[in-house]
């Protein structure tokens, strides 16, 4: 008698198990000028610490958003690839989530965002290792902010301590504020009623934020356009950020 081994066939269907986003962003790389206004605006809004020269040299800087650029060709035919603001893509099927042993990196069903619960985080850094976009930053120290710099802190945003992972939240404090306001007035949030700090600052209006589940919103219209694509789409992460190709 022979025993037939029944090994179930492995099939990963990421697209089905993930969740489509509720909030989304469209970033037009054709008009992004790499000016870094978004980076500064994000740092000011979200109490992101600066780490100093030595630590930033070690790659420990805490930017929640950064602009990437790469080179193609050789001088004089050299071209810089379009500036590519890189931030948490708020994946619908996020690689960072299943690896967190402390459930600090979790998916919010109601907002369809990737949350980072700072007081659950034990600093394993598994999530950052697993993030294909490299957008998570870790508090390697309690970075010093001498008085009176802390006067500038945004009281709506927690200040993180050493040993805690952090990342872009799509300015969830602004989302909640707008939702509370709309709820108290018994209405839905209107498109463009509020926006994230990066989109608000962007002098070129290259960053547009809004409800991606509303086909009529500005961000949905942009994301549907022929230039739209997702970063590392082939990984099946279902990013909520759509990039618009340059040129």
């Amino acid at each position, binding site marked *: 008698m022979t025993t037939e081994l029944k090994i179930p066939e492995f099939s990963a269907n990421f697209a089905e198990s993930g969740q489509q986003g509720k909030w989304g962003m469209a970033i037009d790389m*054709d*008009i992004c*000028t*790499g*000016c*870094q*206004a978004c*980076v*500064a*605006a994000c*740092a*000011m*809004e979200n109490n992101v610490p*600066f*780490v*100093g*020269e*030595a630590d*930033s*040299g070690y*790659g420990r*800087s805490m*930017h929640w958003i*950064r*602009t*990437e*650029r790469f*080179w193609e060709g*050789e*001088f*004089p035919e*050299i071209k*810089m690839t379009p*500036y590519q603001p890189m931030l948490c893509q708020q994946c619908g099927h996020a690689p960072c989530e299943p690896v967190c042993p402390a459930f600090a990196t979790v998916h919010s069903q109601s907002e369809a965002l990737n949350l980072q619960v700072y007081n659950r985080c034990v600093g394993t850094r598994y999530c950052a290792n697993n993030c294909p976009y*490299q957008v998570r930053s870790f508090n390697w120290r*309690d970075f010093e*902010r*001498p*008085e*009176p*710099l*802390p*006067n*500038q*802190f*945004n*009281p709506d945003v927690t*200040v993180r*301590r*050493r040993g805690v992972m952090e990342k872009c939240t799509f300015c969830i404090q602004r989302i909640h504020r707008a939702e509370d306001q709309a709820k108290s007035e018994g209405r839905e949030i209107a498109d463009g009623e509020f926006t994230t*700090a990066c989109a*608000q*600052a*962007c*002098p*070129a*209006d*290259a960053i547009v934020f809004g409800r991606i589940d509303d086909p009529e919103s500005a961000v949905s219209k942009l994301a549907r356009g022929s230039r739209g694509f997702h970063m590392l789409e082939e990984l099946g992460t279902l990013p909520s950020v759509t990039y618009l190709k340059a*040129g």
Partner: protein
Amino acid sequence: MTDNFSRRDFLKLASVGAATTAILTGCGPASRYVTREPYTKMPEYTYNGQSTYYATTCRECAAGCGLVVRTMQGRAIKVEGNKNHPVNLGKTCVRGQATLHGLYNPDRVQDPAKQAKRGSRDFSSMDWDAATAVVADALKNTDPAGVAFLMGMAPDHLFDLVSDLAKAIGAPAPIRFGALGMFEARATLGKAVESLFGQAAMPFFDMGKSDLVFSFGANFLETWLSPVAFTRGFANMRRGGGHGRGTLVHFEPRMSQTASKADLWIPITPGTEGLVALAIGRIAAEARGGSLPTAFADVDVEAIAKASGVSAEKLDELGKLFASANAALAIPGGAALAHSNGLETAEAVLALNALVGGLGRAGGVFLAPLAPMQTEFSRPANMAEMADFVEKLKSGKVKTLFIHGVNPVFELPKSLGFEDALKSVQTVISFATFPDETAMQADYVFPDHHGLESWGYQRVAAGSSQSALSGAQPVVSPYYNTRATADVLLAAAASAGGVLAQALPFKDEVEFIQSKIVALVSESDGYFNAPEINTFTAYFQQYGGWWKTVDELSTPSGDALGKTIKVGEAKFAGEGEFYFHPFVSPVLGEAGANKPWLQEIPDPTTTAMWSSWVEIHPKTAEELGVDNDDVVRIVSEAGTVEAVVYKYPAIRLDTIAMPFGQGHTAYGRYAEGRGSNPADLFGEQVNGAGDLAFAGMRIKVEKTGKKYPLSRLESRMGVYGEALGEEH
């Protein structure tokens, strides 16, 4: 209660259980992040948990962008753009965002002080009555001819007050200067417009409606004139208002941030920008047919191709492209004007617009409107005038020098000898908010408020098609024992009595500002109207200024093409084998180095942070035997600096570029002793408009054998590549 009442202390007091206290005492240093003020210290206009927003004007440069600052319980929390403001329409640049790190900078000047000996940093605090008496004494007892005022490019209300004051006592008119004005070559722009169109004015470039922009060195996406307004124009051009996607062609020896957004970057030989403009003009004129205009008649395209390194075929292609566009626009600026032939370069580039009918056409060149309460074009002092001023200081004719809003010891070329010249001045009084290099060479420092604690106004010079006066008001009460310079001068004038008191009979800064803006109450076409000055002032604060609702651009007149434009060969000072190409750091600007978050914002093109660097092409670096992070010595005719090598793949092989913004020897802990200052290399060569020819230099590069690890963001991206370094 103490000022710093920590959350932990609060919990300690609030909890009665000793066990709780013991556990909490074991906690880490979290408590130091949380400070609470007693409720009794709360300003009366704040509600708990609710933000108050104030409109004001950004002071990080002189462009005059409108801000709305979010405050919470008397603290400034976040800078946002003023949506109604014609310059920035709700947007801000990176420096505007970081202005809060200036406001709450730990190294601000906190009290008025007297320095025991210049440069000693031995300051003894004074009270403001004594400080005012010092100013009053200086104004009253110095021969008026021996009083001099050196002012920055912002704010304008203080410049107006000082102008009135100087006139009243018969002192020379105040001099204005700023490093950005120097790098922008504002005098050159004004003079080129005057010589072509018969009227000195700031040109206005309607980029948003253009479909083809040729930028000759103008770094308009970085710091040039009004970067937020230009970025909006660029974005609209790219989105293609009616013409389809607009094209940007940029001529610059190095790929700057602006050049990196260009569809075509031409790494032109430094100093040949004007020649190339002439060649393009000739080819475009031929392509358009008709008789060849005088401006482009005597142009030898072949010779220009040889000099500029742009092939004749390429010039032909560019000329035809320029001629065929619907709304072509040519912009002169930046280092292209900072050559001995810079004025002629500006003329040649502006003439291109005339050739294609771009004067007064949508998407073309206009003359910017004068700001409200402005009667004629004004510009900061050019380098020739600054050199005269320094000579005057050296001669000992100036007994008392007042300095506000500018840091000449850092910003002027070292070779000019400003610091030395100060030794011949009996009394130097600085009104610096930050302990900058110039304040360190002053006898007295009477700190002005930070811009966000200040009243004022700023005339919009370049960023708006509407005539606009941007208004400033304090968004928080002063954090330190500082006082508005306007108030100090007014109090000093009152106590000096005589003509001074008569000329400036204002009880404070606000009353002075009202005496100026009262002229606008009766103006029509305003963004708001008010029947009298008090209501007007309230609106002026609420809306963040006053501007016309209609465009007031004017069409340049005159026969711009009728005169021969002779662009001579650019002269280069020094003997070295490399061209030198200094540029203003797009992140730090002229005065951002003391803001820690700006230091940690990566430079857009190199991603470098926290220091200065020199950009050298990898092939050149190999020939020189230097690598990334090697420290090299740059030697010019006028001086030397040391800086870290950054191998930059998008720069000419014969050119070395270096950012301006670092290299402070004072200016607070985040700026001091960091990087080096290219102004130490600058000579005194000027162009036809008297602007500094800072790009007309040749330099040598010498090895030092030292290494310095340059912090840069890009290492972080290739986590498995070079980022980890050899040792991993």
